[in-house]
């Protein structure tokens, strides 16, 4: 693994219209084996297969999305992330990706440990609940936050576990996981100061000790 890149430009390009995908695309080494949890319609996996030559697999709970993913040639199976990894043998993948889904799982910690059982490394991207817009709306509106990052009303939000950059750092440290790389994104910019306040989406590359 290369060290955390110190690029001069603070800007992150887009992959499929998303800067967190660009980061993931940067992290994943070519010709590896990748499992994407909550892979949606398989866009990222298809991109990784075409651009990085990875052996791409996915899990997705929505039948309609699975259908689209398989139609585009990606090997996706319809299943629940919370239960779905048990069948995989240990260390079956080089990377297990969880992109903006951790906050939607019922047992995030269990999912994290399962990811690191079936994969040598885990890539976790999540929206930061500590972002200043969230704090601002709670402070001044007094309602459940509804922002660009968390666009749902409280009653139809798929997000059930809210976490901040700070929370995630505390968790990996308590669980003695190794953070190989961390990226803090706000739009297309990389954040270097006050990440817990300014990060919209955080991307972590972690592994077990």
């Amino acid at each position, binding site marked *: 693994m290369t060290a955390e890149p110190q690029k001069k430009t603070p800007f992150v390009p887009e992959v499929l219209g998303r800067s967190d995908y660009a980061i993931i695309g940067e992290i994943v080494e070519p010709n590896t084996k990748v499992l994407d949890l909550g892979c949606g319609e398989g866009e990222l996996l298809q991109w990784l297969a075409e651009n990085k030559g990875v052996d791409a697999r996915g899990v997705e709970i929505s*039948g309609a999305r699975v*259908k689209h993913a*398989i*139609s585009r*040639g*990606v*090997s996706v*199976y319809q299943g629940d992330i919370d239960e779905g990894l048990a069948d*995989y*043998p240990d260390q079956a993948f080089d990377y297990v990706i969880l992109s903006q889904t951790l906050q939607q799982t019922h047992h995030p910690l269990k999912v994290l440990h399962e990811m690191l059982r079936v994969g040598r490394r885990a890539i976790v991207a999540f929206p930061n609940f500590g972002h200043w817009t969230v704090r601002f709306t709670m402070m001044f509106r007094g309602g459940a936050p509804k922002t660009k990052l968390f666009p749902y009303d409280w009653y139809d939000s798929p997000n059930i576990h809210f976490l901040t950059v700070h929370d995630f750092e505390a968790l990996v440290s308590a669980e003695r996981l190794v953070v190989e790389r961390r990226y803090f994104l706000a739009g297309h910019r990389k954040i270097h100061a006050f990440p817990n306040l300014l990060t919209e989406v955080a991307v972590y590359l972690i592994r077990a000790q």
Partner: protein
Amino acid sequence: MIVQASCVRFESLSLDNGATLAPVDVAYETYGELNPSKSNAILILHAFSGDAHAAGISHETGKPGWWDNMIGPGKAFDTNKYFVICSNILGGCRGSTGPSSINPATGCPYAMSFPVITIADIVRLQKMLVDSLKIDRLLSVAGGSMGGMQALEWAVAFPDRVVSAIPIACTTRHSAQQIAFNEVGRQAIMADPDWNDGNYYDRKPPARGLAVARMVGHITYMSDDSMREKFGRRLRGKENFGFDFDVDFEVESYLRYRGSEFVNRFDANSYLYITKAMDYFDLTNGNSTLAAAFSASQARFLVISFSSDWLYPSYQSQEIVRALRSRNCDVAYCELQSNYGHDAFLVDVAEETDLIRGFLASTYEKVQ
């Protein structure tokens, strides 16, 4: 697309039960062109009552194939791109050797002297056909129901001969419920005096028994929803109950029609032998677990089930997927929403087409 059946004869086939069948005929059809590198061949495996005529319009009968909505130019199995083969199974009655074939030793039909066959025997004969066509590796083996079981058997028995497998609406082994329905069908046939211990080829066949067996089968192929939608409690050509045991309800009329129509195209003894082969099928055979059965398999899998299929429920497809995942095999799985029950794989093909087209295209790309 007008198609013509071909037939190839093999000297002999050794069977799981120890017997040898000689000679053995295989009726088959092909669609599309085999490419020069022979990398675009797909073997379609038919379900219980299917035959070699999977697609196109039959030269002999003028009828479309049983999966004509899935196989052809621009369809799921695109014959502009792929070379598609379908053969009648061993034990069948549509051109391949089965109980109605003449036993060369006696000059009479085998009838019940035909050996009891297995899905593995059926697949071994298909492999002989593929060998005779000089195809080393099939791009895919695909089928629904019993066709799916054959696809699984192919992947396990000849792992180096298949690039991918598409088992649809099927199982790795019959449950008690599935065996039970088959047994009802067999008993209906054997209870018909015209069955005559299987010796009816020179006289009246057991039409009533076979028709009842087919009626039971048809119920299991539909769903509560699809039957309600198709028939409800509508009466057939009358305003009031007849207060007799003629046809009152539409559903009765439909089942009687399906039953009697089946008699004209299917052999009762084939019914017995093929259902037995399905009931005996167990992919774990000789292995401690299902996952162990897949240990040599290198194939890519697309597993499909249908939400309203209660004959081959989704949990059975999920068992296949779980076993494959535990071997870290490349597997895609989707449960498609459909009201058509088990029949969905034959009739509700729009989404099935999308899945198979994408899966085959990406698989084909990998072998180029």
